[in-house]
């Protein structure tokens, strides 16, 4: 089951195209990373899903239904440009934002109280937001995003501006929400923050989708039969012809790190056997590119 499907979304502004025929399919209960550099079109995509702006072409389906105003109550959105009413009290504000997401007043009060207790800011219930620290305000923003138990949570650059403690807290909450059945869309230009969280990713650059799929598949497809070997003693010319040493660095004393590439059709075990024969192996790891390396190679290639 797909939580969200976007088909051939195009959005043009007078002097540029923000999204050019972009299609996404986001599995239910996944953490989906929408990645790309600044200005790639991520926020435009997110605003279209939130019905803030309309796409020029294409359509968005949520749980198989065409996007409509009823979906507002099942989406939770934490925008990149986020804030709160400074003069409003914490409790009032959460209840108000909950009501805007179609919660009844009673329900909104109940849940706001539960959440503020959970995140340890209940004693600030009657304080104005302007009296709060930045970290507490961030917690309130997060609560307002998930208060109505949305099935689809959209977080645009969630960790920018969040302090590390809050960032970890939110990571934990996000995993918990996924366990309870929510789907999470992450948008960020900081690939490393997403690597550990996401199980699906899409890369957008210059308004175009350049890569989409599960993190595992993508990484798999970028394997290059290359291994990182740390060993004692030199490797100079002692390996069979189907293995080539790409790089060789002296770490210390007689210890080396070598990058070894093998030809198609050979197995890692054969390489290991050949290595053991000529040197003392200390570590043997397949070199798998990080998302950010894949991204840079993709974007660099596209330009």
């Amino acid at each position, binding site marked *: 089951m797909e939580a969200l499907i976007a088909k051939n979304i195009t959005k043009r*502004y007078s002097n540029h195209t923000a999204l050019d025929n972009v299609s996404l399919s986001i599995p239910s209960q996944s953490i989906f990373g929408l990645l790309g550099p600044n200005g790639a079109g991520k926020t435009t995509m997110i605003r279209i899903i939130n019905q803030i702006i309309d796409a020029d072409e294409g359509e968005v389906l949520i749980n198989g239904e065409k996007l409509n105003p009823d979906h507002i109550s099942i989406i939770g959105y934490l925008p990149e440009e986020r804030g709160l*009413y400074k003069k409003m009290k914490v409790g009032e504000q959460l209840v108000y934002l909950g009501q*805007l997401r179609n919660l009844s007043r009673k329900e909104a009060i109940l849940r706001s109280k539960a959440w503020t207790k959970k995140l340890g800011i209940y004693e600030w219930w009657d304080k104005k937001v302007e009296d709060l620290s930045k970290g507490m305000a961030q917690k309130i923003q997060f609560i307002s995003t998930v208060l109505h138990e949305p099935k689809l949570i959209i977080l645009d650059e969630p960790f920018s501006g969040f302090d590390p403690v809050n960032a970890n807290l939110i990571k934990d909450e996000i995993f918990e929400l996924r366990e309870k059945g929510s789907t999470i869309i992450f948008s960020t230009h900081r690939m490393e923050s997403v690597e550990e969280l996401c199980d699906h990713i899409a890369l957008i650059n210059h308004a175009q989708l350049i890569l989409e799929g599960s993190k595992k598949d993508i990484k798999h497809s970028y394997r290059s039969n290359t291994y990182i070997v740390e060993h004692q003693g030199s490797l100079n010319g002692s390996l069979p012809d189907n293995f080539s040493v790409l790089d060789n660095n002296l770490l210390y004393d007689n210890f080396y790190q070598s990058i070894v590439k093998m030809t198609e059709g050979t197995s890692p075990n054969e390489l290991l056997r050949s290595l053991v024969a000529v040197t003392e192996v200390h570590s043997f790891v397949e070199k798998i590119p990080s998302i950010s390396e894949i991204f840079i190679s993709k974007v660099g290639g596209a330009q």
Partner: protein
Amino acid sequence: MNKTLLIIQREFLSRVKKKSFLVATILVPLIFPALIGGIGYVMKEEAENASAEVIHVLDEQGSFNLENTDKYEFIKVSGDLESAKKALAESDDYGLLYIPDFKIESPEGFVLYAKSNPNFSTIGDIENEIEDVIKDSKLQVYNIDKEVLDKLKTKIDLRAVNISEGEEKESDAGISFGIGYFTGFLIYIFMFAYGGQVMQGVIEEKSSKIVEVIISTVKPFQLMLGKILGVASVGLFQVLIWVVLIAVLSTVVLGLLGLEIPQETAMQAPDAETSEKFVRLLANIPFTKIILTFIFYFIGGYLLYGALFAAAGSAVDSPSEAQQFMFPIMIPLIAGIIGMGSIVNNPDGNVSFWLSIIPFTSPIAMMGRIGFGVPAWELALSMVLLVLGFVFTTWLAGRIYRVGILMHGVKVNYKTLVKWFMMKN
């Protein structure tokens, strides 16, 4: 629609709960009467307690006798002008009036030397004194009896009756003039005060960056409308409190004064007729009509300008940047209040007609005319145009607003506004 109500409710409560609202609501009806009363009292005290200014009179003619008054005491001096000036400089006295040896047919050459710049009223007072003296001597020269002249003076009181609406109604231009000016000015002030609040509110939402969260749950147009209507309800609520406060206060004050009235009327019998006429005139003023018209033009005008203020707020990041867009909004309002002068003087003239028909000035201009009686069709046309006017400005503002609130750090000029307006959603 339900969510628009929710927004209106938040806008209303967040403003009404503020201390500044409470203070303004209670103080305004007290401040204005207190201010007017206070200034009046000080002026009266000053006039009563002021000691007479001493003015030296150097009379070249010899027989020019100015009468002393409460305000001025005239002392004759002799000698030449230079020594008189020196004498004045050495004294504590106010000034030196030089009376030349003039011919009665061409009285010229009077000079007032003073140690400071004499103000208008002093100059006017002394001119009157001199003119009176010359007039008296002219009467003698031409052999006219002063008593006969006094009898020639005639004063009549013209009753003005308006028969346009079938029944005869006594009207008084003065009262209509006062009501027109006052209510028109009130609308002018409200447009700025509450329009400004709408703009502030929009800028606050934009600069605190809450706006994107809100418009992911409601249409930008709903948010704008909610804010405009929320502030409107604050305005109406405030006016309502004022009306009640003023009514209670004046009843109390009149009640206290009422105890003193019998003595006053006994002492000032001739005034009874005047005050009776005043009461009769007041009874003829169509207060219900004026109040209903006021409420209509207050709401209509506010909606028209409120939308424009919202659009201006959405285009900028801070109130100081909003100045450039405030100016064109202010121009028609200022035109309305300037036009008021000619409206109350000639309520049926061309200027009055057009200012009270065009929606941008009609809320102010129509209030200026309403006390004098406005033909029904003109009132109807003006109202319909005002409704069309605010529907139009709300639509226009909505198109700018929906784009503007999401733009941060953009340098905005009128070209950008047009671009936003044309942008499809």
